[in-house]
């Protein structure tokens, strides 16, 4: 079904009620930046001021690890960015709002307002805790904050009230089935339901680790296993899926996962777009969008 993907994602973000939205991926080159750019454009077209940042580095012209071309972020006047001082384009000049004490690989993190349209590279704080503070501070400059959440760096979601878009793509695994398993596991973690009041529950302090899960399964634990928020579930892939099948895992502060995006074209491989989209849609109970094909999975 042909759709305006950016506008659809922006609408879902709006309906979530969250001021900030994180785009997180199951791997590198799975279309996170493309999804982010689509949402950003829809935000601009809706006349809303948006602030952008990332965990670590994104938006650069070439991939820092394999030197291949990357999608770039063309930002329009009024947009606010949190990026490294060395990554801020020297021209056209931006309005520098603050030189912060946060350090990145490319110098101090600065907050700047775009005054003339230009390509920007986002180099945000590498630490999840710092990113949370940055998101909070950016909210003083713009009503909406959009974050490129980097590869499976969900720790940055801890303690936030953000909406989340999950990106997956052909670059993440050799077969569509493996990608589907990965995204299903990540979405299951992020969508961990809130503990219902009055439930018989066992609270876990800190992270729910694979060892703890194995122990609970062996003990045939029937109570709800409760973590503070989904970022405390430190199991991935099939292990996570099995944990959710065998245990009743709940959290105190759920996240708001609003959609999944797919990129059927990878660096080294490509999947048939529509069948891949269908498989992902069947695996998650969320709207699934192909950002390259401008389609929503049926």
């Amino acid at each position, binding site marked *: 079904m042909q759709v305006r993907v950016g506008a659809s994602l922006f609408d879902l973000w709006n309906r979530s009620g969250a001021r900030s939205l994180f785009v997180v991926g199951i791997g590198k080159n799975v279309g996170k930046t493309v999804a982010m750019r689509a949402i950003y454009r829809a935000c601009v077209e809706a006349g809303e001021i948006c602030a952008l940042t990332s965990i670590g580095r994104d938006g650069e012209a070439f991939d820092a690890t394999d030197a291949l071309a990357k999608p770039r972020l063309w930002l329009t006047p009024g947009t606010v960015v949190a990026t490294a001082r060395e990554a801020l384009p020297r*021209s056209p000049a931006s*309005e520098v709002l603050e030189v912060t004490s946060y350090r990145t690989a490319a110098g101090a993190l600065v907050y700047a307002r775009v005054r003339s349209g230009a390509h920007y590279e986002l180099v945000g704080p590498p630490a999840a805790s710092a990113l949370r503070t940055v998101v909070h501070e950016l909210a003083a400059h713009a009503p909406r904050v959009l974050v490129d959440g980097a590869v499976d760096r969900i720790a940055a979601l801890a303690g936030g009230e953000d909406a989340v878009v999950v990106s997956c793509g052909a670059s993440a695994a050799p077969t569509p089935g493996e990608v589907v398993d990965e995204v299903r596991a990540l979405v299951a973690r992020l969508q961990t339901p809130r503990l219902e009041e009055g439930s018989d529950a066992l609270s876990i302090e800190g992270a729910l680790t694979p060892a703890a899960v194995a122990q609970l399964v062996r003990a045939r634990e029937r109570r709800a296993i409760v973590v503070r928020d989904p970022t405390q579930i430190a199991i991935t892939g099939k292990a996570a899926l099995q944990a959710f099948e065998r245990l009743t895992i709940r959290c105190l502060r759920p996240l708001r996962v609003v959609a999944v995006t797919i990129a*059927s074209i990878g660096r080294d491989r490509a999947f048939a777009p529509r069948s891949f989209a269908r498989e992902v849609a069947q695996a998650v109970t969320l709207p699934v969008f192909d950002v390259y094909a401008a389609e929503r999975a049926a």
Partner: protein
Amino acid sequence: MKPARLLDAASAHAVGFGWLRAALAPASPYGDDAFAQLEPFAPGAEHDARRRAERIARIAAALDDERIDAVRALLAQAPDAAPALARASMGEALDDAGLLEVQRFFDACVALDGLTSACTDLPRVAGDAVRTCAAALERGRAGKFGFYLEDAFDAALGRARAALAQAQAEYDAALGRTRAAAAHALGREISFPEFIVMREDLRGPLPSGVRVVREAATYVLCELDADDGVLAALKRREDAASEVARVEEAVRERLSSTLRAHAAALDEALRATGETDVLIAAARFVRQHRCVVAEYGADELSFEGGRFVPLELELAAQGRAFTPIDLRLDGIAVVTGPNMGGKSACLRACGFIAACAAFGLPVPAVRARVPVFSEIAWMGIGSDEDGGGGLLSSFAREIVRLRELLARSLPARLVLLDEFARTTTPSEGKALLVAVLERLRADGADALAATHLAGLAQAAGARHYAVRGLHGVAQRPAEEDLNAALERLAASMDYTLEEVTGERGRGSDAIALASLLGIDAAVIDAAYRALDSLE
């Protein structure tokens, strides 16, 4: 703030130098540099030390706590403009973040002068150079805090940006026409340079303006193919962007050259800001801890109402008061008294007050007369805090430290001996201590020894101070709870230090203390019986 030759690591630890350094820490990177350079005054520089202490005391009197906190908050928030100013002085055209840092520094200078205007002992930091350079940057002030290369800096900027906006609009329009035509032909949205077209959706060939990047069985990966019109618009946009970059860089160069022209004066503003930060931190210390300017004289270390501030604060946190100390040390002296009676605190207070004076700081006392010592050396308990020793016994470690101390023939030394030689036989330990004190006296050092050894003061011909000690504890039952025992000890202990003649003075009250700290009555009774038989 470096202890340098004044204190070695163990002595610095014993007299609370680390605490003092933290209490005097400046609020900003400007002060950090100045603070790192602080060294103690040397003997002979008493006049300079006193002048510094008097200056700090006047600042503390001129500014109230609220004003001092406001200055420190201002300095803490000011960005460190020193690297940017250094780069500008070396010919670099600063980036806009650097210009913002410099502008904020200038703002801080002006605000700082406003906050400290009532105090003539602090340097003025916003001189002519700061005001001239601030005026040059003022047009870049954007919003409450930001900086932007506004068109007002140069008429050419406005023209170049208008041309770029026009070229951008033309390029967007040209690309938009190509995109719209392709989107219309394909019946879908095209938002990105690369997009997928499903073969099953294609009715005929791809429309013009769309180029194939990669083909697959079920889809075609495409991108927009820029025609000559789009490419020409792109070229015009790139040319316009280059012109904007050129003019912006010229403005940055001009602003940076203004900073470069005033580099020496701006460097002085940085230095003065750092000096202010250090002096304000010292004034805060003086106000918080009720310090006074000591008289500086080479003849004696004496004080009334002296306090060892780190311990005073620790006690205050537990709701207890530090008993101020009166002491006169003009050569060698001995302190005796019960365990936990404050002998070590007396030694530490001496060292702390002497260290403050050596750095030209007012001292925590009601009145004080202090030499500028070349060295403050701590011997005995706590002198091997750095963990050295290896195969050496604690006595051997003390002796090694003593050997090193005696080998350094420095003038004007303060030596603090806390139960030195306590781990050997009392008779030999006492003999050794008497000899050491005589040697130190002969060397012209001031030395204070805390000890439980009876008759030491008389044997060494030293002034004798004694802690008044416990009263009415021995008959009380043992406390089960340690905290309760310590509270009762504090209530039962008179920590007052008084000079005594001859060997008058109290014993160590060790058995009474053991009882108070919970040793059972049978052991205590046996101890008292043993004491009677020994005496």
